[in-house]
C-alpha cells in the first residue's frame, strides 16, 4: 500500500500501462515536457520518449481522429483533452466515428481508444474549465464512460480502460486530483470490474448514488445524516456507461429511498436515467420518488457563484429530507 493523490495515481497507472504494453501511447496538448496542465503525465516523456508520449498540435478533432487511426493500426492510444469544455471540437470524431467503428464494420474493426478528460467544477476556474458533459457521451451507444473517485480506483481503472477493447471516456474529477488515499499497487491486478459500482458506505434508510467529485460530498452528507439518526447508504457509481443498475436496485430494495446527485445539469442528465430505471425495476420497494440533485439548467456559472451551483452537503441533505417526507 502506498499513499498518493489521484493525479499521481493516474500518472502511475499510465506509467504501468506504457511499461506493460509497447503498443500503448499517450497523446495530447502539453502532455510532454510540461506533463500536462495538471501534471498528470509528469515525467513520462523522459521515460518513454516522444513517440510514446506525444505532444500533439493544438487540435482536438485531430487528436481523437488520429487516435482512431492509430487504434485501427493496432495501437492503444490514450488521448488527453485538456479540459472538459474543449472536447467539443472533437465531439464529431467521438460520436460519429469512434463510437460506431466497431458496429459499422460488422464487428471487424475495433478502436480501443481511451480519452481522458478532467471534468467538473469547484476549482474557481474561468469559463469552459468546469463542465460535466458526461450525459452527452453516455447517450451515445458504443462508448463506455468511467470515472474514479479515489486514488486506488484511479490507478487501476485507467489501466483497465486501456485494456478494454471498446472506446472508453475516462472522466477525471479535477477538483479531487489532490485527494490522497491508499493505492494497492502490489496486487497482481485490479480486484474490481471497472463497470461495477461500489457501496462505499452501508446504510439502511436511504441510498445516495454519486460518482467522481461528489463521492466525498455524499459521504459527508451521510455522516451528517447519521447524527440525526438516519442510516444512509452511499454508492460510488464508477461507471456512467454502462450503469450498474443491479447494485442500485439491490440497495434500493434494502433502503426504499433513492437520491441521485451529480454536478451536471439535472435536466436530461444521468440522474433522470437512474430514476426512470429504478422506478421500473423497484417500484414496489420505493417509499418515495427518486429525487435528483444536480446543476441548474444554465451554462456553468462564473466561479464566484459556483458554490451556489454545485450540489453540496446541504443540497443532498435537503433531498434526503424530501425523500423521508413521503
Amino acid at each position, binding site marked *: 500500500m502506498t499513499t498518493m493523490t489521484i493525479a499521481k495515481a493516474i500518472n502511475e497507472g499510465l506509467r504501468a500501462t506504457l511499461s506493460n504494453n509497447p503498443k500503448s501511447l499517450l497523446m495530447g496538448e502539453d502532455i510532454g515536457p510540461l506533463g500536462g496542465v495538471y501534471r498528470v503525465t509528469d515525467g513520462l516523456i523522459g521515460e518513454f520518449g516522444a513517440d510514446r508520449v506525444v505532444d500533439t*498540435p493544438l487540435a482536438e478533432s485531430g487528436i481523437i481522429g488520429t487516435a482512431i*487511426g492509430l487504434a*485501427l493500426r*493496432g495501437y492503444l492510444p490514450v488521448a488527453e483533452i485538456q479540459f472538459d469544455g474543449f472536447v467539443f471540437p472533437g465531439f*464529431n470524431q467521438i460520436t*460519429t466515428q469512434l463510437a*460506431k467503428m466497431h458496429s459499422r464494420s*460488422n464487428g471487424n474493426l475495433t478502436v480501443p481508444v481511451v480519452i481522458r478528460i478532467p471534468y467538473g467544477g469547484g476549482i474557481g476556474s474561468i469559463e469552459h474549465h468546469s463542465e460535466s458533459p458526461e450525459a452527452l457521451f453516455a447517450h451515445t451507444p*458504443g462508448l463506455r464512460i468511467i470515472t474514479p473517485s479515489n486514488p486506488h480506483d484511479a490507478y487501476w481503472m485507467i489501466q483497465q480502460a486501456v485494456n478494454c477493447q471498446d472506446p472508453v471516456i475516462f472522466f477525471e474529477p479535477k477538483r479531487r486530483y489532490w485527494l490522497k488515499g491508499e493505492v494497492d499497487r502490489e496486487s497482481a491486478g485490479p480486484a474490481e470490474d471497472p463497470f461495477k459500482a461500489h457501496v462505499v458506505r452501508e446504510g439502511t434508510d436511504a441510498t445516495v448514488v454519486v460518482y467522481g467529485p461528489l463521492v466525498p460530498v455524499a459521504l459527508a452528507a451521510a455522516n451528517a445524516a447519521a447524527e440525526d439518526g438516519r442510516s444512509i447508504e452511499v454508492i460510488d457509481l464508477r461507471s456512467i456507461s454502462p450503469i*450498474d443498475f443491479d447494485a442500485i436496485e439491490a440497495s434500493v430494495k434494502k433502503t426504499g429511498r433513492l437520491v441521485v446527485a451529480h454536478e451536471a445539469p439535472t435536466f436530461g442528465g444521468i440522474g433522470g436515467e437512474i430514476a426512470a430505471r429504478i422506478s421500473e425495476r423497484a417500484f414496489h420497494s420505493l417509499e418515495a420518488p427518486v429525487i435528483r440533485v444536480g446543476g441548474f439548467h444554465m451554462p456553468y456559472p462564473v466561479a464566484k457563484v459556483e458554490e451556489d451551483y454545485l450540489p453540496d452537503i446541504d443540497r443532498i441533505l435537503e433531498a434526503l429530507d424530501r425523500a423521508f417526507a413521503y
Partner: protein
Amino acid sequence: MGATHLPSTEFDGTELDDLLEAQAEAALGVPSSEMVQLLGPDGTLGTDSVFSEYAARLDAEKLRGFYADMAAIRRFDQEATALQRQGQLALWVPLTGQEAAQIGSGRASQPQDYIFPTYREHGVALTRNVDLAELLKQFRGVSNGGWNPKDTNFHLYTLVLAAQTPHAVGYAMGIQRDQRLAEAQGVESAQGIDGPAGPKAAVMVYFGDGASSEGDVHESMVFASSYNAPVVFFCQNNHWAISVPTAVQTRIPLSNRAKGYGFPGIRVDGNDVVAVHAVTEWALEHARQGNGPVLIEAFTYRVGAHTTADDPTKYRESSEEALWREKDPLDRLEKYLRAEGMADDAFFAQVAADGDELAAYIRKSTYESDAPDIRTAFANTYVEAHPLVAEELAWFEEYSAGFAGGDEGEGASR
C-alpha cells in the same frame, strides 16, 4: 501583398501564382499550380520532366488493364444507378467522369498500403479487390459497411465529410511506429500489426474539393506534417460539392495549400489515367521512403449528378458537362491504345462483354442481399459484454417471441 491583390477566381491572380510556384518548385522541382498531364484528350502522349519516367514503367498490358478497369467501373456505375431507379438501392453516388482519377491512383497503390476512401471511390475499391456487390450493401441499407477492411486494406466508406482524414494520418503514424519497432528488432520493416517484416507501407486518403474546407482536413495536414507521416492526401476536385462550385471552397488551386503545411502538392489532370498513376506512384514512394506527406489534387469532373437524389440542371449549364465529356478518360485511352496498336476491336468487345457479366452479377447479388438480423447490431455495438445491450436484447427476444408464429427471422425484421 495585400488582400486586394488576391485573385478573384482560381484562374487569375498571376502575382500570387508566381509566388506560390516559386515556393512549390523549391519543394518538389515541379511547379504545383501547373497541371501534370501526359495523355491528352486527343489521345497523344506528351512528356513531363519528372513524371514521364514513371509513365515509362507502364507496358501495354498495364494500360489495357487500366482501360478494362475504367470500363468495368463505369458499367458498374450504370448498373447501380439503374438498381437505384428500380428501388433496389436507397441512393447511389455515381462516379462517371472520375474513373481515371480513381483507377490511376488505386492501381498505383501496393497491397500493403492502406486506403481511406470517402463515399464515391468505387473505382479505387475495384483496384483493391473489394467485392463490388458488398460495396452496394451500404446503399441498399443492409449494412453500414459491407466489407471487411482488413481483407483488402480498403477502409469503409465515410459519410461525415473529411472525418476519415485524421484516421488516415493516425494510421500512418502507426505504420511509422511499426517500422521503428521492426527496425529496433533488426528487421527491415513491418507490414501489419505485430506483422512480419515486409515492404514499407503508406496510407492514401481520398476526399473531395468540398470536403477540403472541413476543419478535419486542416488538422490532418498539420498532424501529417508535424510527424512526417507516410500519407498521401488525394483530393478529387470534381468541381462541385453538390451544388456549390469549387470557387466557393478555395481561391487558389487546392494543391497549393500543401505548401502552407510544408509538403509537396501536385495538381494532376484527373482525367488522364497515365498521369494520375505516375503522380500517385511518385507520391506513395515518397511517403513510403520516409519523406513525409504529399497532397495530390486530381483535376477532374463529376459528369453526372452528385447522387441519384440530386438535380444538376438546377445549378450548372449542360454546356459545362459537354465540355468535360470531351475530356473523357476512357475515350482518350482508347484512342491511344488503338493508335499505338496496343488494343484492337476484339479487346474492346471483350471489355464490353465482361462489363455485361459484371452487371449481371451485381444485379443478382443485390436482389439476393437481404436485411441482416438486428441481433447482429446488438452483438456489434460493443466488443465486450455490456449489461444494457444484454438487457435490451433479452427484452427484444421475449417481445418477439410473443407474436404468433414469431420465429427468429420475423422477429428480426420487424
